[in-house]
């Protein structure tokens, strides 16, 4: 009995202590960014193996923070979440751009992301997938009422709307109310003022909301069943639902959709940098990038991948975004430290309000 216990403990400890060998790429990413067929092609071509963990921005940073940047070899946070966490916790390591095939990236996007993820003269991130968030709605039922985020509070759609209680909602509402929160990023007092206006609006709007959605699937169910007719959501969600019901689609709000870029970042204690660089170079090839676009529903920063993308998705994209709407996309700048505390208090108070 004792021996068995001991043996089991030892085995368990050995299991814990065992580290990944150098050619295993532990990828921390979003759902759809590493489809199985792409992984198979990569493994066949390079001999590396890939372990995928799916997550979101907040959890990625929390996981890396807990281990001081260990446990993974390549991570994909959004570009606005690279600079702040790096300054605060030092969880990433600089990326060596020369090891990447830069010609595979859309030049303007590469430069913008590099600029947004530079800390102390070192570049930490390169772009991968980009998209927007805006309004997903049943145009037949809510199309006349809802043109912008604040229209979600209109009595005509009472009890039929949903949004997330997270920072994109605060930012979106601020823009819709005629403010410019991004311009106030460096001015804490001004930002607080904007956020308190948004808080008042969201509190007032609360009876109109059916529920605050948490995950993408939850929202899809709400919209598909018709329980929710208009919601703040990602573009891909709207386009996926559009396949089932032609009335449902993604609409860029009048005040502008919010644009995000998910990046490639090396965690500080990553152990397979070569495999990580190989993966980035591999998935940025236009044909492979098109496969990821098909799986994730979002376009990538890969130059020339558009040619390989499905026509149906391109058509949906063009239906949702006129040239004017594209020019009006508000790209997230890096989040300065301290702002999220202000936002957090606002979100807590809105959630608790009656």
């Amino acid at each position, binding site marked *: 009995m004792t021996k068995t*216990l001991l043996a089991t403990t030892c085995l368990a400890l050995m299991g814990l202590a065992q580290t990944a060998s150098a050619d295993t790429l532990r990828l921390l990413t979003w759902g759809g960014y590493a489809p199985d067929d792409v992984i198979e092609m990569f493994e066949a071509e390079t001999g590396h193996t890939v372990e995928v963990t799916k997550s979101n921005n907040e959890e990625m940073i929390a996981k890396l923070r807990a281990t001081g940047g260990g446990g993974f070899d390549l991570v994909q946070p959004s570009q606005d979440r690279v600079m702040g966490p790096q300054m605060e916790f030092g969880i990433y390591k600089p990326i060596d751009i020369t090891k990447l095939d830069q010609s595979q990236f859309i030049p303007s996007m590469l430069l913008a992301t590099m600029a947004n993820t530079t800390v102390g003269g070192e570049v930490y991130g390169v772009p991968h997938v980009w998209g927007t968030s805006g309004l997903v709605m049943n145009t037949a039922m809510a199309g006349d009422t809802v043109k912008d985020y604040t229209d979600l509070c209109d009595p005509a759609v009472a009890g039929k709307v949903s949004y997330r209680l997270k920072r994109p909602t605060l930012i979106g509402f601020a823009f819709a109310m005629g403010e410019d929160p991004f311009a106030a990023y460096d001015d804490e007092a001004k930002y607080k003022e904007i956020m308190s206006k948004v808080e008042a609006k969201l509190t007032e709007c609360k009876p109109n909301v059916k529920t605050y959605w948490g995950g993408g699937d939850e929202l899809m169910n709400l919209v598909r069943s018709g329980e929710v007719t208009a919601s703040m959501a990602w573009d891909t969600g709207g386009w996926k639902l559009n396949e089932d019901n032609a009335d449902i689609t993604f609409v860029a709000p009048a005040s502008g959709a919010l644009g995000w870029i998910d990046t490639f970042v090396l965690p500080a204690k990553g152990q397979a940098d070569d495999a990580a660089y190989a993966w980035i170079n591999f998935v940025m090839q236009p044909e492979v990038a098109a496969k990821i676009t098909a799986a994730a529903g979002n376009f990538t920063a890969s130059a020339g991948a558009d040619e390989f993308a499905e026509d149906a998705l391109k058509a949906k994209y063009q239906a949702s975004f006129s040239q004017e709407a594209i020019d009006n996309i508000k790209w997230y700048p890096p989040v300065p430290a301290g702002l999220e505390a202000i936002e957090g208090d606002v979100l807590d108070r809105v959630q608790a309000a009656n």
Partner: protein
Amino acid sequence: MRLHARIGFILLLTPLVLWLGLLIVIPHIDMLLISLRERISFGVYETSTTHYQKALTEPLYLRTFWRTAVMSVLATAITLLIAFPVAYYIAKMAKGRLQQVLFMLCLIPFYVSELVRTFGWMILLRETGLISNLLQWAGLADQPVEMLYTDAAMMVGLVYTSMLFMVVPLVTTLESLDDSVVEAGYDLGGNGLSVLREIIIPHAMPGIVSGCIVVFMLSLGNYLTPTMLGGKDSLWFTEMIYNQFIVRSNWELGATFGFMLLVLSSVIVWGMLRLTGRTLQETMG
């Protein structure tokens, strides 16, 4: 021989000590240290009690804290009220095969994970769900009824989730009650109510107390059910802890909340034992 016994004892104790030390004591000490520091600037921290002050003065946090405590006590009480007759029937009225079958029926929902059970309730209660459709079909409602995202829905979920943990200790203690004692109660002129009050409940007290403690702890620490069924008004204390740790990256405040929850549950369990005049030893042993 004595040396052997001692080595055996140490070896047997090691896993327990490792378990408690590595997974409970050390993380808690670390949490305490985290909760007692304040972020000054990038990577610079100072020891302070700011977060405890903030947690104890901000009305929002206090409200959520008490709301979670009161709702958990309520959930425990409702669970007890429902589980007691069920347990009594299984332990005393049902015999042989039926007894086993009934006990199994209580157990079966726990074969699937909590997530699946909660989703089950969502399918039943949602606006386009089963109950809503049934009501419309029967003519009792003329439009879809939304039953999700309320405190009542959350309470249903909490009670359902913790039912088994009340039934099992109750069945065990009630089974040990000799039928002849109940019979003697009636022979001595007692009626159903007085026999219940004077004989059955006092006998079942250890089961009631341990069941209540477990159910209360489970409800207080539940994350899934309040988040999924409670919807937009469900601020639960565990959700606030998760938010502080994961979403806000504010580990200090999250750790403070964690400690507040630990103290709260300890105080309420202690109060429950005092109220029923029992010691922890009696209840657990």
